[in-house]
């Protein structure tokens, strides 16, 4: 059976999340899965985070766009792609949940908000998931494939939607913006003293921005919290498949094992494993290196292929019985649809 058959044949409105550490080929894998979906007649969309320039060009992603662009080709389905614009995705979210345009404006102009939308660690993860949810809700596509930012910890993006609500729930600031109730007042006094100390270190402007931010957000947390719950629900939905992407080197495998562990712990699990950049084995068995360069070279390749197989086996076992796809070292970097088709050929190869 074909390695990742189940992935491209997900039920209608299926979602595929490609995760893994940096430099292992997540973006390429995500794009190749979406292309395969289109070739199987589905309306597929790939959400990319930081594609290499030539691949971005090939997918028609010259600039950050928050709406998908269509890529024409000779497939029965449709292929769409978009490159995530974290900041404007966040801005849209604020505008959606604000009670009125004034509230939205107040937040969008706030210094702390600008920092959150641009720099809060986890914002990119959060917005990738948010965009996924938005596209899925709209129902325009029947296969959405998302690339994820290179985080070390899988929980960073599973948890990302919750991070903002945690920030909004911050006790100190909540107390600070509700100084009217008598019992809070006493606490608030200590809080004020605390904030004065913080101001000394980071400057009063920052603290007053923070206070203004929490005041501006007043009443919107509930909307955000519910939205975060929907996103979480989508991630743990059976129609959402997690594809773990790795390379067969020891350190990358260790990171992938850690990733898989976290996904399993959070009851999400790994639905498929993709291992990129495998050396071809050129047969197997011991080779007498002393018979000259040709033999030493063959011995080198058999040796490294065996080592890679060994690391890879540990990972495959971890995610068993999920299917595993192997992608060998390719002659060229993938920077066009032809390259993606080649990768797809390996991912969906019939064995």
């Amino acid at each position, binding site marked *: 059976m074909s390695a990742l058959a189940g992935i491209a044949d997900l039920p209608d409105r299926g979602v595929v999340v490609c995760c893994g*550490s*940096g*430099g*292992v080929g997540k973006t390429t894998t995500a794009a190749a899965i979406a292309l395969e979906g289109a070739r199987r007649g589905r309306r597929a969309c790939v959400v990319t985070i*930081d594609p*290499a320039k*030539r691949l971005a060009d090939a997918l028609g992603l010259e600039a950050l766009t928050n709406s998908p662009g269509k890529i024409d080709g000779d497939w029965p389905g449709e292929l769409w792609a978009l490159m995530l614009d974290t900041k404007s995705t966040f801005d849209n979210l604020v505008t959606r949940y604000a009670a009125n345009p004034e509230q939205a404006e107040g937040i969008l102009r706030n*210094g*702390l908000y600008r*920092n*959150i939308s*641009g*720099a*809060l660690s986890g914002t990119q993860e959060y917005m990738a998931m948010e965009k996924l949810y938005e596209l899925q809700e709209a129902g325009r596509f029947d296969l959405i494939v998302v690339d994820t*930012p*290179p985080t*070390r910890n899988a929980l960073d993006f599973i948890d990302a939607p919750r991070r903002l609500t945690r*920030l909004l729930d*911050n*006790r*100190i*600031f909540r107390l600070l913006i509700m100084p009217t109730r008598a019992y809070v007042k006493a606490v608030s006094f200590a809080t004020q003293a*605390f904030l004065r*100390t*913080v101001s*000394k*270190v*980071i*400057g009063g*402007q*920052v*603290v007053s921005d*923070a206070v203004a931010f929490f005041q501006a957000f007043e009443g919107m947390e509930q909307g955000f919290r519910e939205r975060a719950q929907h996103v979480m629900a989508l991630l743990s939905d059976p129609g959402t498949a997690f594809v773990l992407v790795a*390379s*067969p080197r*020891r*350190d*990358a495998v*260790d990171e992938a094992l850690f990733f898989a562990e976290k996904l399993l712990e959070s009851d999400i699990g790994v639905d498929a494993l993709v291992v990129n950049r495998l050396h*071809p084995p*050129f047969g197997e068995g011991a*080779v007498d290196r002393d018979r*000259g*360069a*040709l*033999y*030493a*070279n*063959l011995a*080198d*390749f058999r*040796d*490294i292929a065996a*080592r890679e197989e*060994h*690391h890879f086996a540990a990972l495959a076992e971890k995610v068993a019985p999920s299917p595993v796809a192997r992608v060998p*070292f390719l002659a*060229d*970097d993938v*920077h066009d649809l032809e390259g993606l088709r080649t990768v797809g050929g390996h991912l969906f190869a019939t064995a």
Partner: protein
Amino acid sequence: MDPAGFCTQARVLIVAGKGGVGKTTVTAALARMAAQAGLTTLIVEVEGKSGLGSAFGRATPLTYEEVTLAPGGGPDGAADVRARTLTPDDALIEYLRDHGMKRVSKRLTSSGAIDVVATAVPGIKDILVLGKVKSLERSNSADLIILDAPAAGHAVTFLMSAHGLLDAVRVGPIRSQAQEVIELLTDASRCQILLVTLPEETPVNEVVETAFKLEDRVGVSLVGVVVNGLYPEVDGLDADPGDVPEAAELRAAAAFRRARHDLQVTQVARLAEALPLPQIHLPFLFTTEVGPAEVDVLARALAESITRLPDPAVSTSS
């Protein structure tokens, strides 16, 4: 250029590159080479990764407390390789403690306000990490301090943080900290950046882009670029294996090696054209894990490649 001279151009050497290019391996090899040249070396790791420890045969992860990864001494008179982590949270707590705000630091962490502060002032954590590196530099804690910079596109942001912070924070101790960090980063006699890449198309494009950003926006001095994972050149791969049972495999393996090698040569040339920096070449090791033996091999290769570099022109800055 001799390896000791290379390692003493500045006390702080920041190793930067995208994920998956072997930055941590290069950091380990560089530390080993410096120690073999008699320089006490301290590796500072900021992401809590396990790779550095295992490169020196250490089973447990690094800690905030400094540990000796490879003791010096021995017939070659090597110096110690020490290492520590320096995560942003640790750096913030230490900063507050050192500035008489120990009680606040507890409250900051327990209340979650630390997240608010870090969000309100993006880059504050990076500044504290770099500020700590600066104080390690000032206290002469080692002859060479190697900072394994954050991976992915974060290196530029990480090093840019001080500039961003000066815009956001107008007064106070954090501002002066940021100014001191900028002084360190922009002083070529105190701090240099070593880039790492692979001889492949995308990594080459990315390292070129990073190099220009770092020079233009951060004003740092780039000491060179390490091209990691080059297939060593082997003679005799064109030979005809003759009529042996494994002839097909021998030919296929040789052809694969030649093809990869040719691709790499093309990319190395492309890099040389796009980026006028000294290139340091490291071989591809036919192994999947890096331990002390591999680090030694790479340290030797690094030393050989550096020895082949011309001596740097005498600095014209006063």
